[in-house]
């Protein structure tokens, strides 16, 4: 009987667990891959279009692979890549440089302000803290469209319209979502560490810079990535504030390939590929840190 039970258990295990699991895994791979292809398709389309000559753009059926049609075999338009830099006036390198400056400064701003504020909410005790934190959280839900016009008028009064300042300066004063993310992360760091440092006579700022910040690297990296990417792809901000081509960002610059009667699809897609690939690589290598850095325990208002 014992042997029978054992055999049954083994059989059951062999049947139910690994095989079902194997099939499940395979199914999951198929699912993720299949869906993944539809996610990759537009990107592939971007790359394919960037290599097509203009006359092949509106062919029926469309060319999924730019060289699938023998008549275009030798005509992969690699020149679209170098040409996309020089087509616009000023050259696209200026737009890229502008975007990098804005995104870098915004990221620096976010990294200087948010951790400091989050430390004040997470690791210090002071009257009114919880109330102010509740107010802070509620501003996550404030629609930015609602503040658009008054902010524009403020920046116009300051003479900042047409400059990058309206796109950069606000990031030096904290953003509720980042404050929240960092606070949650800081809360997970044992208070004993800070207490020990206090006994040794360290001031709060010292504890902040020398104990908390080094331990919070994943969270800081997450904030930096989020902020950099948001600034990198922002459209409405530049549309609103940047009115001269010399200060345009990538988002506005890409629209320069679209003219009134004609669109330079190939050049536009070549440039889109150029500006997207570095960000993709960045994400691929940073993703582990990225997900570790988000601590959501106690996600409530």
């Amino acid at each position, binding site marked *: 009987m014992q042997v029978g039970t054992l055999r049954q258990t083994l059989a059951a295990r062999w049947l139910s667990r690994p095989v079902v699991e194997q099939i499940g895994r395979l199914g999951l791979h198929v699912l993720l891959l299949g869906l993944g292809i539809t996610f990759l398709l537009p990107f592939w*389309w971007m790359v394919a279009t960037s290599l097509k000559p203009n006359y092949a753009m509106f062919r029926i059926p469309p060319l999924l692979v730019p060289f699938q049609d023998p008549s275009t075999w030798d005509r992969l338009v690699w020149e679209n890549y170098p040409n996309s830099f020089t087509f616009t006036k000023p050259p696209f390198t200026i737009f890229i440089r502008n975007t990098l400056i804005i995104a870098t400064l915004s990221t620096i701003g976010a990294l200087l*302000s948010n951790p*400091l504020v989050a430390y004040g909410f997470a690791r210090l005790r002071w009257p009114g803290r919880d109330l102010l934190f509740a107010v*802070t959280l509620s501003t996550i839900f404030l*629609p930015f469209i*609602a503040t658009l016009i008054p902010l524009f*008028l403020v920046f116009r009064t300051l003479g900042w319209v047409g400059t990058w300042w309206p796109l950069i300066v606000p990031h030096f004063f904290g*953003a509720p979502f980042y404050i929240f993310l960092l606070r949650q992360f800081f809360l997970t760091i044992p208070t004993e560490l800070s207490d020990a440092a206090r006994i040794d006579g360290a001031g709060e700022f010292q504890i902040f810079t020398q104990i908390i910040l080094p331990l919070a690297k994943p969270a800081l990296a997450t904030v930096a990535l989020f902020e950099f990417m948001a600034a990198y792809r922002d459209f409405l901000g530049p549309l609103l504030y940047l009115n001269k081509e010399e200060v345009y960002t*990538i988002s506005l610059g890409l629209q320069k390939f679209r003219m009134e009667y004609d669109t330079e699809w190939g050049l536009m897609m070549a440039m889109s590929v150029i500006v997207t690939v570095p960000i993709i690589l960045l994400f691929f290598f940073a993703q582990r840190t990225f997900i570790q850095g988000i601590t959501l325990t106690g996600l409530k208002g």
Partner: protein
Amino acid sequence: MAAVTPAPHRRGPLWLRQLGLGLAFVSPWLVGLLAFRAYPIAASFWYSLHEFRGLGQMRFVGLENYWWMLTKDLDFWTGVSNTLVYTLMAVPTGIIAALTVAIALNVRLRGQPIYRTIYFLPVLVPDVALSIVWLQMFNPQYGLVNTIIEGLAKLVGLDIVGPGWLASEVWAKPTLVLMHLWLIGHPIVIYLAALQDVPQELLDAAAVDGANWLRRTLHITIPMITPAIFFQLITSLIGAMQIFSQPWVITGGTGQPAQSLLFYSMVLYRKGFQEFNMGLGTAMAWMLFIAISLFTYLLFKSSARWVYYGGAEERR
């Protein structure tokens, strides 16, 4: 948390020193809160009570802007209905899609980093480029999507013509919803982070009791991450109600065809920054603010019923 040890050279009562220190740390945000949030919202209301062209004199008109907007301005109502229809389609589908993919991406599987990158990829493409690709792929005649649909239909012997997508009044918004579904990278990251916190002991215990993967997912995993779902529900609602860049780029700011892609924030942008009717623009901004506050409040009210706050860490 231990109190700060009072140093002999410091003066004043303890609470005052603590307050000073706390405020010093959060001071950047105090400026951000007042200058970039509180002031604009208050000023927005003040401007909305005036006839104001952005420059020159402001003339107090009471609630006239609101009255005009609600009774006479057709664009306003077009914007409202388009935005509501879009929001109702985009938010639930977005939540379900992101959650499903995130759960699949959370399974221990070879190649997950690559899959994760693939699903995040679209978020990394600048909105402008993305919108243009979308415009091309969904072109009714030359586009890839209809070619595939029509080709597949031919395989089974059907001779159909694919939808007009962005060129059709009926299909334009669903096409934008599809585009939104393609941009679920951010929610996926949030869900993946939340999924890391689901206690493994709980899942193991359920597995020992014979619960299969689906039951574990439905009865443990999803309830455990309801706070993240709730957060995502509110932020995606707010995002959907402010949709701007994609329809703006796709339609060149016109909201065509037949104004089916004229969304609320596009109308607001037009009134405020193209017609320089800042009074009307801020009145629209305030209506949006009220609407979003109301929806957020209702969702928070409902959250007591379905959001699980088991995190003991918060109970101090």
